[in-house]
């Protein structure tokens, strides 16, 4: 029965996962994530690449996580962002328009320039909170429950207080798919 296997059998070791520092600019995190994502895509090919990057503090403790959606929202807030971000952009545009300085309005800049500027944001201002973690010796079924209960797609795995890897929703999917194929 695959689901009675332990978390430790399935996890992605921390060394294979993309990590960044909370004080790094987003641009660094993006490049780190792209590197790992593409390697997995090209190398192991059969399984989904990592779509998240872990954020560590200066003492190497896990403090947050970044996913594609969060990154895109920060880079192109006027498209991918929430209502407040779009309203913020309008407020800024109004301020510059009323001062007859339209050419200075950053929210009207070229797409490329805005992405470059926004990529300078520090990771810690964007990262998602870590919602839930699991011990390496627990079984996969409880991992699955935790993921769905907390509505997350990655679960940090700890052993003896150290972060040793990550369990991904895609891995669980493949495990469940194995049951069907048997």
């Amino acid at each position, binding site marked *: 029965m695959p689901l009675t296997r332990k978390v430790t059998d399935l996890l992605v070791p921390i060394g294979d996962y993309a990590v960044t520092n909370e004080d790094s600019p987003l641009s660094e995190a993006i490049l780190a994530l792209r590197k790992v994502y593409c390697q997995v895509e090209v190398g192991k090919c059969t399984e989904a690449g990592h779509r998240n990057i872990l954020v560590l503090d200066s003492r190497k403790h896990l403090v947050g996580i970044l996913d594609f959606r969060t990154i895109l929202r920060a880079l192109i807030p006027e498209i991918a962002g929430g209502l407040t971000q779009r*309203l*913020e*952009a*309008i*407020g*800024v*545009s*109004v*301020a*510059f*328009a*009323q*001062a*007859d*300085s*339209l050419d*200075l309005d*950053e929210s*009207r*800049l*070229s797409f490329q*320039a*805005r992405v*470059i*500027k926004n990529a*300078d944001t520090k990771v810690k201002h964007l990262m998602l909170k870590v919602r839930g973690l699991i011990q390496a010796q627990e079984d996969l079924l409880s991992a699955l429950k935790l993921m769905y209960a907390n509505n997350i797609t990655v679960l940090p795995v700890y052993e003896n207080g150290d972060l040793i890897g990550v369990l991904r929703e895609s891995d669980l999917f493949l495990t469940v798919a194995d049951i069907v194929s048997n």
Partner: protein
Amino acid sequence: MTRTGKVGAWGLALLLSVDILAGSGFANEGMVVVDNASSFSWWIWPLLLLVVTFVMGVAAVLGGVGGGVLFVPIISGFFPFHLDFVRGAGLLVALAGALAAGPGLLKMNLASLRLAMPVALIASSFAILGAMIGLALPTQVVQIALGVTIIGICILMLVAKKSTVPNVPKADPISSVLKIYGVYQEASTGEIIDWKIHRTWQGLILFVAIGIMAGMFGLGAGWANVPVLNLLMGAPLKISVATSKFLLSITDTSAAWIYMNQGCVIPMIVVPSLVGIMGGSFVGVRLLRVAKPGLVRWIVIGMLAFAGLKALSKGLGF
């Protein structure tokens, strides 16, 4: 729609707005009759106010003028409201606009809190004084002063230059102690520009006058803030524009409280104006994405000058 078509549509919208204004001016002449005629529905004026302020919001954004500056002279000139209530509403309209823009400007690090704070201390204190003076003076006197100020603003708008990155050879002692400096990125080139300011004393003294005027007339003060921050104190234009808008949220807060505590706030005037101007600027910004007709600025400044003259003539009793 073609480009010319759009411009034509704007022109039409503006003409229409002038028409509405003229129409309400007519009604203004017959105000006494209106007041006594109970058949005249109460909601006409608030509705008209909503429409006019909406057009005003669009025009302010397209013309590059602050909404508060347009509001006080035009509404006091063409609506049956007393100047006391128009100033109260004008302050709240300018305040709401500044508050709405504030978070974005601060988060994008365009507005500098460090630059704003010493200036705000001066401007907001004197805005309180200005509001008290403005409410103590006879309406006639305020009317005349308002007219003169508005015409002055028009001239300022026509002649004032701007300097994208003013040359500041050396930061002055006060600004160094206060650590008023920063960096910003020239977005088109990606270049990082260091900025600092000078002539801090002179700037702060001018903000005494700006504060008093802001409180006295209930106008926004962006038209005065930007030249002082940019041309006198030497802050880059982008930082000046953003900081000026943010500054308004503080200056107008202090003056708005004085007006509110004195009873100069009538919700039936304030809320439609607020909704109208904000909605108008919203739409204005969308229109700007298509094109910006240079003509609109001239029309808006012309309208403003006309309203200024009207305030002057009202005050002088012509």
